Every structure is written in structure tokens, then in C-alpha cells.
């Protein structure tokens, strides 16, 4: 039996998810991740997302340090990092982050320093936003599970 608290939390979670989808922060790929979560891998989504966070922060740091180089910008290397970030973001359904990566990659292709800087700023912003929202999502889910006394897999 789900307690009222659990129900409310469940509703909160769904509301947040709907909001994020609507905003384009997440896309259907995230749904696919959720579908992959089942009894055999009950924490799949949070596992993947945590790995993503860990890797992305490394990439973002690298990008930031590359761009801070006053002398010579290594566009090629930046492009590689951006490409990887784009791949992982799209794999988890981080739509907005991925879109900014596309713009970032275009800027590196054109050796556009200002463009890269702008893109990086935006990227960092989007990434922070995504991270906060996903944390929130996981938190709600955990509370819901606690409230319900069992840990339910994330369902749509």
C-alpha cells in the first residue's frame, strides 16, 4: 500500500519529469534508459547518470582549461572533448546539453574562439541545470521509495 506521502512524491516526480521533457532538458532517450531499468538492474538510471556526471565534469574542466589558454587554442582537442560530451549526453537523453555541444563543435571547427567561449559558458550552465534537476528527481524517487517502504523502479 502506498502511503499518501509516497503518492504525492510519485506525483511530484512525474510532474518534474514532464516538466523536464517539456523544456527539452531531457528527451526520449532518457525514457529508454528508464525502460532498461528493471529488477535485474534496479538502479540503472542513477548509475548511468552518475557516471555521466563524473565524466562530464572532467570534460568540462578540460574544456575550460583549454579555452583559458591565452596563447594557442587547441581546437582539435577541444573538438574531441566536445564530441565525447555530445555522445554521452545524447546517450542519456540530455537534450539541451547535446544541442549546445553541437554549437560548440561548430565553433571549434571554425576556430572561433569567441564562439567557443560562449558555447562553453552555455554548456556549463545547461549542465548545472541538468544536474540539479536530475538530483532532484532522484531525491524524490528515493523519498517515495522510502515512504512506500519499498524501492520501486522508476516507471513512466
Amino acid at each position: 500500500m502506498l502511503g499518501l506521502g509516497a503518492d504525492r512524491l510519485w506525483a511530484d516526480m512525474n510532474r518534474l519529469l514532464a516538466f523536464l521533457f517539456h523544456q527539452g532538458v531531457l528527451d526520449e532517450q532518457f525514457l529508454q534508459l528508464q525502460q532498461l531499468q528493471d529488477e535485474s538492474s534496479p538502479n540503472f538510471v542513477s548509475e548511468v547518470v552518475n557516471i555521466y556526471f563524473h565524466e562530464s565534469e572532467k570534460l568540462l574542466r578540460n574544456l575550460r582549461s583549454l579555452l583559458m589558454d591565452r596563447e594557442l587554442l587547441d581546437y582539435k582537442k577541444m573538438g574531441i572533448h566536445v564530441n565525447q560530451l555530445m555522445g554521452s549526453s545524447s546517450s542519456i537523453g540530455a537534450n539541451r546539453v547535446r544541442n549546445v555541444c553541437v554549437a560548440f563543435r561548430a565553433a571549434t571547427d571554425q576556430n572561433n574562439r569567441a564562439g567557443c567561449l560562449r558555447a562553453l559558458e552555455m554548456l556549463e550552465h545547461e549542465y548545472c541545470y541538468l544536474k540539479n534537476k536530475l538530483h532532484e528527481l532522484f531525491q524524490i524517487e528515493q523519498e517515495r521509495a522510502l515512504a512506500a517502504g519499498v524501492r520501486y523502479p522508476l516507471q513512466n
Partner: protein
Amino acid sequence: MTVETRADEPRGQFPVGMRVLAVDDDPTCLLVLETLLRRCQYHVTTTNQAITALKMLRENKNKFDLVISDVHMPDMDGFKLLELVGLEMDLPVIMLSANGDTKLVMKGISHGACDYLLKPVRIEELKNIWQHVIRRKKFDPKEKNSTCNQDKPQSGTTNNGLSSAGAGSTDLNAKLNKKRKDQDDEDDDEQEHGHDNDDPSTQKKPRVVWSVELHRKFVAAVNQLGIDKAVPKKILDLMNVEKLSRENVASHLQKYRLYLKRISCVANQQANMVAALGSADASYLRVGSLGGMKHLQPLGASGQFQNNVYRSLPYSGMIGRLNTPAGLGVHGLPSSGILQLGHAQNLNNSSGNSMNDPLKFRSSIAHVNQNQNGGSLQGMPVSVGLDHLQPNKAVSSVQGPTTGFDDKTMSLISNKLSDPRAGVGSSCSRPPLMGIASNGLLLEPNSQGSQGGRGYENLTSVASQHSEFSLPLMDNHNGRCNDNWPSAVQSSGMPTNSYPTRDCLHGGNPSGASSITSLSTQSHDSLADMQSHGPIFTNNNTTPNLAYQGWDDHSLDSLIPVNGGLGASGLHRNLDYSFGNPLEMKHEGFIKSAQDPSLKSNQGYIMDPHKAQRSRISSNNLGSLEDLVSAMMKQEQDFICDDFTGGTSM
């Protein structure tokens, strides 16, 4: 195609339980991919390092059915891994990337990828990847020996055939991939299913796998008969191999000629020399064809081409660049070929590339190959070009070849025949090839570099190597183009800049331009279809041939000498080696570094053992070039013979 219980299928429930190896340096993607694959009921092994993946694959070739690999990896380029796996294990490889740029996709397909998926990977797409395994097995009955237990009557090797078999589907895949870029789920799935339907002719024919052994016999037979006189029927008789049809030999011969041409072309290009077109062409063609052995299957028209090829390369100036072009155009102009070689050599020498020697060799070869090359040029170009991206460069440099080549089709060549261009025209003929070749080269400049992998025995690797050659060659040639080619080439719209021949084209052959264009387009397809060889030849003939020249010359050289009379076994050995080595060498950056040292060594080597053969092939004084080529070929063969796994530790 349905998956019936196949005798060679160890798991009766295929595709359930299909063993997949997933390689991606990004842990997020790797985990998602692994989970998705598990959801499809495949048996998944993952690694984030290409080197580890190779090790796993090498330790047991039958351990996996399919490999999925990311394109951008820190320890090894995905394309290189792709080539290595294709060469050594003959497994289907699917590329994966966040970057769906057409050029990259093209590169992947040309390197032999079965498919090119874009991230994020969708489960619907993964549900269909098993088709690649079936497709490969089904269409290469003779070759497969690594993943299935079929017995191959003729050849024990698998790589050759597999790549060709893969080619049939890669083209379709390329098309699919393009669509995929648009992230079209449903279409993708349907298209994949449509592969078989769309290209039944390519897919349903069992391919003859030209194993090293078989190729050796072939080369021995060709050398014995004389490259000029080698006709499929006689070669077939000499080879005395069962289940080999005249058509198989014919197509193989065509490729061989292209390869030879390409080799000589490459040599020329690099050297920037303008050897006499006449002689160069001959040798070039031959070399090209040798090198392009793998893809020589569709050869067959060689006889006719000889004339055309040579004719088309009347352009002596071009020779320097193209060595190959000379061969192409100069069919029947042995002397011109030689002249070309001479120039080529000069050019080569100047450039300091290893190719220089090949050029010389080429000229001699061209001389010999004239007849053969002519034919091969036409047919081969396509395949050659595809495999050897480099050739493109060579081709471009060849530009010289007469306008005749512009038409690129054999028809042009035949026309050329009647029109002895001896001097100038020949270069034009090449242009088409060059254009194509260049494209090939341009597309994959990186691939070549990455080829260093030792196990790279496929021609593709050679191709890539060639491309390396061709690239420099092309640059050189740009200046040289007669006018006929370059325009033609460019007009084709081939992406490669390799159409230096453009300039050449303009002058000579307006018709050629159009032909080249067609070639170019074909080249594109060819590139994708390199493996399929078949259709491409007609148009791309000219171009591919050129491509071969660069590389093939080397191999051809060794091959040719072998036939000369060293003795079948000995010769074959050499030939094999020469092929192998260049390939191998290329892998490891051979092209650049190896060329020089190899040239030296080759020369030394060639001088002695191949002298006898040399005489046969190169009545000219181009012996050095031949030697070089043979040496290179020998090395290749050595490489091949040594260990197909390439022994590269990786």
C-alpha cells in the same frame, strides 16, 4: 534473409546469444550500449580500450560474432581497429559515433564497416545488427573460416573475400547510414532489411576468396605468361585450381592490373616526376594490379585495356606524378612507359618518397603491363580506388593520361587504342582514375596513417597506404594535369580535392570531363562499394587504376619478378610478401617511413632475386623501379605469410 538453422551456426537460436564485443572509451555510452545489447539478448563483452579489444579478439578468433566500436578513441583510431579486425578476424564491425558527418561515415564504410551508427544508439537499431553477421557468412561461403566452420575449397584465407563480401552490403549500409544521420528510426530498420533486396546481385553471389595462396598462383601464372599476354583463360589453365572460373580470374586480373597501375601511379605522384608516359603506364598498371589483387577479382577486361590504358597516358609530363597514368594511357607504348618511368623516377627521387623507386619500377612495369594495365585500368579503377584510397592521389597525379581516360570507361580506352596518344593523350585517360583515386585518398588520409597495424593484410590497408601516397602525388600532379583531367575530375563533384587532374582534363578531353564526373560519382559509390568491385569498374576504371599505381607498383613488382621464373614457390612467396609488406608497412606508417627504407632494401633485394623476372617485365632500364616494387611486394607478402594476425602486438 531469414536465419535458418545454419550448419555452421553454433548457436541454434541466433541471433539470441550472438556474441558482441563493444568498445568505447566513454563509460557512459559503454554502459548504455551494454545494457541495450543485453536487452536484445546478445552476449556482451565490453572494454574501453581498443588495444584490449584487439587482444581479446586475437586470442580466440571464434569468440565473437560482431564488434561494435566507437570511432574516436584515445588509444587507437576506430578506423584502424576496424581495419585490423576486418583483416585479421574477418568479423563484421559496426562503427559508432556522435559525429555523423558524411565524410566520417564514408570513411567508415570504405574501411569496411558493416554499419555506422550514430549516438544515441537506439535499441531498434541494435535489434538488427545480427543481420550483418549473417550477411557476411552467407555471401562469403568460401572465405569464412574464422567465424564459421565452412570449408573453403580454394582459399584458406578469409579476409580477402570477406572484405569484398562486406562491400556489397556496405554500399547499402552507406545509404542507410546516411539516412541514419537523420535519426530516422523506422526507416533505418526497414532499410536494413532492404539491403538484401536492394542489391541482390552483389549479395547473393558467393565470392571467390583470393587467398594468399591463390593469389600467388595467379601471379605466378601471370608472370609466366607475361603480363601483356596474360589472358584469363590461360591463367586459369596455368593455375589449375578447381572451382575457379574464368570470370573470377578475369576480374582478379583486372584488379591486379589496376593495382599495378596504381602502384606506379603512386610512385609517380610522389616523385612529382614527369616520366615518360609510355613506359610508366605499362609498369604502373601492372603494379597497380598486383597491389590491387585483393580487389582484382573483377578484373577481366585487362586485355582490352592494355591498349587503352597506355594510350591514355601519352602524357609524359604526368608521368612523374602518375606513373600509373602512364600505364593507363600507354598501352602498347612500352617505350613511352619507360620514358615515363624515367621521369617518374626523377620526380620520385626528388620527393624522396619511397615511391620514387616504385616509379622506376613502374615504368618498367608499365612497360610490361601496358597490355594488362589497359584492361585493368578500366575495370580496376573502381575497386582499386576504393581499396586504396591513395590511389586516388595517384590518379590525380596521373592526370596526364590522355583524354582518352576521361571517359573512364573502357570505351574510352578502346577509343584510345585507336588513337595512339602516345605522348600526350595518355595522361588524360588517367584522370578519371585519378579523380576517383584522389577521392579515395582524400577521404581517408587518416586511415592510412592509422594503418600501422600490422595485421593489416587487406587491400584496404594497402589502399589506405596508397592513399597516403596518392595524396602527395596528387599535389604534385596538380600542376601537371594536362588540362583534360582535372576539369573532368572536378566536375564529377567528387569530394576529394584530388582532382588535380582537373587541369589536365580541361585541355584534352571535354568528354573526358564528363566521364570523369561520372567516374567521380562512381568513385563515391565505388568507395563505398570498393568491395563489390563489380559495377565500378566501368566508369571508374581510369581512376582506380591510377590509384593502384601507387601501391600496386610495389607489390606488382615483387609479383612480377616472381613469375619471371624464380620458381613458382619462390616467386609466389615473394609476391605474397611484397603484397603483405607494403600493406603492413603502411600500417605502421610504412608508407612514409617504410617507403624510404623499404625502397632501399627493396632495391637491394629486388636486384638480385628479381633480376630474372625483371628482365621479363621490364625490358627497359627501369629495373630499379621494378625491383623496388617487387621488393615491396615481397615484403608485403612476407608480412602476409608470416602471420595473418599481423603479429602486431597491439
